[in-house]
């Protein structure tokens, strides 16, 4: 109504990235930092998908019975979909490795505070 879908999605992506950056830099608890990193990646993926949107278009699946030139002119751009599929899986894998490291470090230090775990210089 006020602005079109693509612009509103870009703003949402930007807001998610800013919220994620705040959580990853300024919060003390490590699990909250990891949640913030998850939001940064969600925001980046939403930005990429919003780039491929075509106003009033169709889903880029070619069904039999469509004319080629109408399909070329009206479908959304499918290249960012391929990029985002890979990026979602990479994000989930790095998240899993980070949580595993957090569990190992908790067993050693018995606290989840960043000042204690990552603060001092370990010799």
């Amino acid at each position, binding site marked *: 109504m006020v602005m079109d879908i693509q612009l509103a999605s870009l703003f949402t992506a930007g807001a998610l990235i800013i919220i994620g950056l705040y959580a990853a830099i300024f919060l003390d608890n490590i*699990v909250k930092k990891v949640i913030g990193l*998850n939001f940064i990646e969600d925001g980046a993926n939403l930005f990429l998908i919003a780039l491929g949107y075509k106003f009033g278009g169709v889903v880029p699946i070619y069904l039999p019975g469509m004319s080629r030139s109408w399909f070329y002119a009206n479908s959304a751009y499918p290249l960012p979909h391929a990029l985002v599929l890979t990026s979602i899986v990479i994000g989930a894998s790095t998240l899993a490795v980070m949580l595993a490291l957090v569990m190992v470090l908790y067993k050693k230090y018995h606290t989840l505070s960043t000042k204690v775990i990552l603060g001092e210089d370990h010799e």
Partner: protein
Amino acid sequence: MIEYIIMIITIIGAIVTILQRDLLKAAVVSGITGACIAFLYEILLAPDVALTQAIVGAAIVPAFFALAIKKTKRTDD
């Protein structure tokens, strides 16, 4: 119309997640945010990506967080 409501729910969900003191509630609300983003992908004409994000962002990643929280601490203090 409904797209704008979902976008606002996403942003509010993200803010609520990082303000929580109970970490398990934070993991669940981040799952809600992931599901709203999957809905947004469907609106933006990307159904294949919406399926992947729905599974990974709304089911798998909150399960990882819940497992990690169970082995460590429940609250943030």
